[in-house]
């Protein structure tokens, strides 16, 4: 190693700042709220040869941290087969089988040249508002092929040696219900890459390309070293955890995600061999997505490991080909968020079996992509599409957070006043959901209730959710949370979808409502050990009903919290 520890620490901070600044540029200038408000985007710096993640921003969507390397590698391979990479090129694509996640996520990859030779890649990924397919917003719960989910663009050049290719943009725009939003987001991503390139050059000007290159290599080695130390701190052995998806949206049968986790000294094996085979509906994921989800789970468990490829060096994966967790085109993958949330749950559950004291229970575990769409009186199309929140799992040191965001995301929810100003809807409730957190010495955080009334003549409703049958699990003796519950009104009364939390194209009339009750988080530890004062407080605040307090804790009103 030719780089000293102090320069390394300083350069690490500078590089992370570049990636963060790229994130911020896109968040501020993006058009669609999924990027601007929900931060469903990410930026990073990648290896010139392997595409491996060198540095990733801290503010982007966590799941992209692991998956972007596959996207850059896809471009490297495609370029190698078609004349190589050139200065001024920018590649664009959304192929989820190579690049991970789903069709909504468009990736832009830009090579950075230094004195005529390739130094590194920069990449930007963002979730676009609409990319065609059968369902506005692209969460099609009944897709059986990716063609029903949206357009699929393989890696192509958006800029060819610095020249803008309008024909590519024309193709993209023609395939979206919301072309202006697409154009705005695309521009934001280009702005972010341009800024990243300027910053990288300024950094190399300050430190020299040799030093920066050495630093990037060294950071990867340090990350691997830290991960090995973290793994070595766990006891050797194999533990198993199984959890389930409700169904695939096509056939109402549960799908199993099984993990056998082996710790052997400073290495870890994550074996998913006992998981379900590929399914007909859109909850399949590609292998790259599976690896990325495990990375997110491990980073939640070991918070201080850095965001680069070295972290996965001591981890071996066993993911059977053609399983639910490793599908190929054109198997549908639009609902990947639900599957990776369950992957994170099984990692948390497995870790809790070997190190229960510090473990986290499962969070609410579903993205609840709800879409209401229709036409206004003047014929203008509207699509309200949003993800909803739920409770976080309890942990060894306290209760879970009420109404948090998903572990794969740092998204905030749009203000209901912004939604009401933009779309013909009126929220009639926006509240915490009592009794939704799992019981335990530490109680799971509460989920939420959202109730929405339609103000226009009619609309189509789509929902892509999970945890309608299998509740978020507690750990270390803690209880499970409440399941996800969705209801909608029709002329003849209130209904629940046949697939529980997945639904396509239900017609809603003016004045009718939809209601989402989201899961809380699982509990941690034996409920019998929860102090009476804490239970009394839960009852007083309405977090837990008196009936549930008696059932789950054997608690009778009047105990604890004397003087309150």
């Amino acid at each position, binding site marked *: 190693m030719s780089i000293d520890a*102090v320069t390394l*620490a300083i350069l690490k901070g500078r590089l992370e700042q570049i990636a963060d600044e790229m994130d911020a540029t896109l968040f501020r200038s993006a058009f669609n*709220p999924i990027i601007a408000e929900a931060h469903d985007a990410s930026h990073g710096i990648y290896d010139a040869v392997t595409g491996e993640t060198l540095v990733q921003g801290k*503010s982007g969507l966590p799941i992209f941290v692991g998956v972007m390397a596959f996207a850059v590698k896809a471009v490297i391979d495609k370029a190698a087969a078609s004349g190589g990479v050139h200065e001024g090129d920018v590649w664009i694509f959304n192929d989820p089988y190579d690049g991970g996640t789903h069709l909504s996520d468009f990736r832009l990859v830009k090579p950075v040249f230094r004195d005529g030779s390739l130094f590194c890649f920069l990449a930007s990924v963002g979730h676009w508002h609409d990319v065609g397919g059968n369902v506005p917003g692209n969460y099609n719960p009944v897709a059986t092929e990716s063609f029903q989910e949206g357009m699929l663009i393989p890696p192509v050049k958006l800029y060819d040696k610095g020249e803008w290719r309008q024909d590519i943009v024309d193709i993209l725009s023609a395939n979206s219900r919301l072309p202006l939003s697409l154009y705005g987001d695309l*521009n934001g991503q280009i702005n972010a890459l341009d800024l990243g390139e300027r910053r990288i050059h300024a950094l190399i000007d300050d430190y020299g390309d040799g030093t920066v290159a050495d630093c990037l290599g060294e950071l990867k080695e340090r990350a691997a070293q830290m991960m090995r130390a973290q793994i070595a701190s766990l006891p050797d052995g194999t533990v198993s955890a199984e959890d389930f998806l409700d169904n695939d949206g096509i056939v109402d049968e549960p799908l199993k995600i099984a993990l056998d986790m082996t710790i052997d000294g400073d290495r870890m094996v994550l074996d998913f061999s006992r998981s379900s085979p590929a399914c007909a509906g859109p909850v399949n994921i590609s292998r790259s997505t599976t690896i990325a989800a495990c990375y997110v789970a491990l980073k939640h468990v070991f918070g201080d490991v850095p965001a680069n490829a070295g972290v996965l060096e001591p981890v071996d994966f066993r993911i059977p080909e053609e399983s639910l967790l490793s599908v190929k085109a054109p198997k549908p993958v639009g609902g990947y968020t639900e599957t990776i949330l369950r992957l994170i749950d099984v990692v948390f559950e497995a870790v809790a079996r070997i190190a229960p004291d510090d473990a986290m229970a499962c969070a609410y575990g579903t993205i609840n992509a709800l879409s209401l769409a229709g036409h206004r009186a003047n014929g203008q199309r509207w699509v309200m599409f949003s993800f909803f929140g739920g409770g976080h799992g309890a942990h060894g040191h306290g209760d879970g957070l009420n109404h948090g965001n998903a572990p794969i995301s740092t998204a905030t929810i749009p203000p*209901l006043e912004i939604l009401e*100003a933009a779309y013909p809807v009126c929220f009639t409730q926006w509240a915490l959901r009592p009794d939704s957190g799992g019981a335990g010495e530490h109680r799971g955080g509460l989920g939420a209730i959202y109730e929405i009334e339609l103000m226009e003549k009619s609309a189509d409703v789509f929902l892509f959710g999970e945890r309608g049958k299998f509740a978020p699990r507690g750990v270390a003796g803690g209880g499970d949370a409440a399941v996800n519950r969705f209801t909608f009104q029709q002329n003849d009364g209130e209904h629940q979808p046949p697939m529980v939390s997945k639904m396509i194209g239900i017609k809603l009339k003016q004045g009718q409502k939809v209601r989402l009750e989201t899961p809380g988080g699982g509990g941690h530890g034996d409920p019998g050990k929860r102090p009476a004062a804490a239970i009394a407080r839960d009852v007083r605040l309405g977090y837990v009903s008196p009936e549930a307090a008696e059932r789950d804790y054997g608690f009778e009103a009047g105990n604890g919290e004397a003087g309150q």
Partner: protein
Amino acid sequence: MSGRIVIGVDVGGTFTDIFVLDEAAGTVKTGKVPSTRGDQSKGFVEGIGGLVPDFSAIGTVVHGTTVGTNALLERKGARTGIITTAGFRDVLEMRRRDRPTTWGLAGSFEPVVERPDRVEVDERVLADGTVRLAVDPESVRAQAMALREAGCEAACVFFINGYANDTNERVAVEAVRSVWPNAHVTAATEILPEIREFERLSTATLNAYLQPVVSSYLDRLETGLKGRGFGGDVLIVQSNGGVMSVETAKRYPVRTALSGPAAGVIAATAIASAAGFDNIITCDMGGTSFDVSLVAGGEAALAAQTAIDFGMVVRTPMIEITTIGAGGGSIASVDKSGLLQVGPESAGSDPGPVCYGLGNDRPTVTDANLVLGRINAARPIGGKLDRLDVEAARAAIARVVAGPLGLSVEDAAEAILKLANAKMAGAIRLVSIEKGHDPARFAAMPFGGGGALHTGALIKEVGLGSALVPRFPGVTSALGCVVADMRHDRVQTVNRLVDQVDTAALGREMEAEAGAIRGVLEASGIAFAAIDTVYELDMLYLGQTHTVSVTLDGAGPDLTAADIRTAFERAYRAAYGRLLDGIAMRVMNYRVAVIGRRPDLDMAVFAPENGKPAEACRTGTRTVWCDGAAHEAGVYERLDLAAGERIAGPALMEQADTTIFVDPGLEAVVDAFGNLVIRRMEVSHG
């Protein structure tokens, strides 16, 4: 006017700083007394008495207060009730569905108002302002009585979409007051008539939560001053850097959330401007944090909102202060991958650095400065300790950093400083380069106790043009009180496409708002050199959710859509570079600010009198480690230096409230106002 004496008072956690300006005599006095915990007004009044025995000679007392900030951070506001739209009692607790940290899911949040104190009434306003369901005053009265009986001292009425039509809120507030006569009843839209329910409710709730605490403090303060014969005005510094009357502060206490730090930035701006520097980056280094603010063209940058703590959002214009966890007490460690870390964990000021000898054994930034000879062990600043323990600091650095990294103690200490400096440099880049400013055009202005040790390194690391060290860095905030302008801001949500806005009506409304605020300023009885009005729109392209701040040349009935479009395109191009032709533009909010400019303070009052040549101020030398080598640095009594004196680095300058390190390759010059200007040797001139 009962007198020509203006007094600035900044109450900090440890000390109360007092700055006395005698306008008639053209003289200043400064004082420092211990803050009186529990009731800050006691130390406040006694501190003034120590400097100005005759209170009737005092015309104005201007105060930067941390009473509000501390009540928020320590959650010691009043028990507050919220009366809200049925179905929405949990908006405050649900936040914007966020979490405190990206990685790890162990965060928690306690709202300042518990769930049983958040009660609902039937009512509903739609997004277009239509009243769908009128509020029944009787139901409000019943809920108000229940809150009162439960023991609440303050109440906030918050209804969904109130920004679009506040009729129901006004009726409800009236109903609350009819059964509960109380000065602490807040309508959310009165505090912030802006779209986004959580941000509006959070701001309004925190306002109500602070009202009883801040009001009673200000009452005690006024009583204390009057009891000593004071007959002038008391003004309070707001987070936006302007001052307000006590009456306004009691209505809008949430505007004092960053009162103290804002005063510091205002002072820095005034000092720098007098010294000929319009572009500065202020650097306030404390025990646990490093706060930076950007001042461009003589104006401090403002932020629309800030979070005092996780989930405690305050949305009112505030001086934009970027804080990172790098202070004198920041702890150095080596992580599991062998990388050196500095902060964000901090030993604070108690137990503080290892060298304080108060029980901490992990090395800090201050310990590194001490080991490298930059701090005088026999002369600790602040006056609490008699001397610092160099050997203990060395031992801690040897054990925790030098050993694991295989470095000498001096190299390890320098590594700690380099990393701390790199973090501070990152914060400066964040407010300058990332906002499109060239750091070479900016001077760093350190205030507080520790900043002046690091400014030289920041000049080198970020490429800043120079550094400006004020004559009394320790009383900067108190000085800021004396020079701050009076300022009031008003925002109102519009939420229409430019094509759909009646621009003449909008222009008239903005002008009328400005007139109303001007009336408030004129009624304050304060003399202004000028009154300025700023008209702004928050705008965006249709489809975006983040706005760009667009400054208008003026308002009034002549405002046209073309004016608005031109101004937006100018602002958008500056922010992002690429315009988006063919996409409609939307006006989200309008903002009006009226600023009463106070007369400039003649900074010549700080000019050194009877200053001496550098050689006469030299008290000795100290060995200082820098860039891997030992240097023999001259040590000087800073306050004795005459204007125009020039000292080449490496050099150390000492005074009661700070130590200044001039790095090798830099030089310091005393300017006509007593400031030290530090620059690179090769670019110095004259």
